[in-house]
């Protein structure tokens, strides 16, 4: 996938997170998440080339990034859900890396390490201020774009 398409995907994730922030209740949130996954699948199928094995889990990576950004807007149990969302992202990436490794392709281990480090860092946060929220979103976007 090209750098531009990757950047658009990242922006889409931010937009999805903003959509999720406006929902109240678990079921409505789940419904919007369904729309998020569907749009991500459609976007990946339009933009990506399916012969590239790294695109297998691309919509789920988009969902993971969306969830990470979404957790910054939570009012309760923010740290818990932030760590959970990053654990989900880590799991999606880990499974992708191992499957790529098994087929002999080059796996993005650096991205995995970066997500793990940010996730671990989140465990140490006591009060998450607006500035830290912004910093986290920038970090996640950087991981998405550059690793």
């Amino acid at each position, binding site marked *: 996938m090209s750098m531009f398409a990757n950047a658009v995907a990242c922006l889409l994730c931010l937009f999805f997170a903003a959509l999720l922030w406006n929902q109240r209740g678990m079921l409505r949130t789940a419904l919007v998440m*369904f729309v998020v996954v569907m749009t991500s699948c459609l976007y990946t199928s339009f933009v990506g080339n399916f012969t590239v094995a790294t695109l297998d*889990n691309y919509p789920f990576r988009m969902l993971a990034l969306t969830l990470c950004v979404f957790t910054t807007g939570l009012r*309760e149990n923010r740290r818990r859900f932030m760590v959970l969302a990053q654990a989900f992202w880590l*799991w*999606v990436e880990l*499974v992708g890396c191992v*499957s790529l490794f098994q087929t002999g392709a080059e796996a993005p281990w650096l991205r995995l390490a970066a997500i793990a480090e940010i996730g671990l860092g989140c465990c140490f946060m*006591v009060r998450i201020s607006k500035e830290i929220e912004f910093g986290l979103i920038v970090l996640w976007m950087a991981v998405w774009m550059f690793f």
Partner: protein
Amino acid sequence: MNSKIVTIFFIALSLMLLLSVGGSFWDGSFDLLLHDSGSWKFPKTLFVFWLGMSPSGILLSAFLLIMKVKIHRRTSLLLELSSFCSLAVSFFYVLLYGNSLAMNCNVYSIGIVGFISLLYFVTHLIAADSAEDLTLCRELAKIRRPLAWIILPTVFWVVSAFGLDFARVENPLWQGAFFPLYLVACAFYLGLAIAVALLLFENYFNRLIERLLVLCSWFMSLMFLWIILLRGEGCFTSFVFCCLVPQLLFIDAVRENVWGRLFVVMSILFGVLLKCDYLVNSNDLLFFSNANFADVSLILAGTMLFVSLFLGVRFLLSRFFENDEILIGEVDSSSDSSDGEVPDENEKKNYPSFSAPEFKVVRLPILCGVLAAVTYGYFTSDWINLAGPFGAYVSCLLVCLQPFVRLGFFRKRRGGRK
């Protein structure tokens, strides 16, 4: 317990099993049932199905506990019990058709998941038992969520490793980063479906679980479409049974009717069975074109065993399941304030990092578990299959020892004061 539904279901299953065994004489497939030649692939399909179902109950129960979604204690106990029964049924197939099931499958990691699930289940049972020592119940209730925190990633790990291994050795069509995600989603879906079925036997239903089931069916449809986009093929029959039929729950008459709900759940389970057959054989219609009475007998024998085991243990442990609560009709998440557990008074407090009560319980065991996993991985070079489950095993054992150690110290100190 809804004895009417249980009786009708049990008798119908027995009759169908008898008929199918009789039918296997008629179509000449009885020989397949008796002799494990190794050429019959259907036991493998059933093995994958029941093995896939085994973590689903415990996965759902642990996930809902971690997400702080309140479901009734009885619901989560039923889910956890169903996991063990499914594991027992898959073991039954291994015993009977070992040659046909020759496949790469890490028995130790499955055993470890079974063991830590058992610890979780027993902790839950005793923690909810009002007849037991109240101090012990309180101490055990404190370790439930920490145990769920360990169980959830372990199940994810084991299912992912199984999926990656299966794709690499058995069927290269499924090779890729997508397959483990798909398997975990299937496990969630199965957990929700089995929860609705088991609650039917208990004569009550949970709207939240039904809504989640419908939502999950949409996600499964998306995953199915994603497979079609990726691989250019997929199991369409399974899509119909697994994803389209559950939409009937939108119709009031189906949703409010016990038999309607049972039909939807059976359709989902059958759809997942078709999916397992597709995983093993890579042919959408092979299940129907090669069907014989021996296949039907084997499905029904597994189902009978599951139902018998489940109901047997359920009746044996009815004191724990029923406790001192009375349930009539619908149980919704909002009405669920007394699920027999110690209420978490500190839930709304804001804790500094690494100092929440749950974390205090889990930090030393996790550290020991990570060290054990690293040591195991270093000496065996097996980082993918067993290192994680081994670490989880050590952590869970240490977490479960904590209440007893704490109680021992408490009693000793009290004895010293006297």
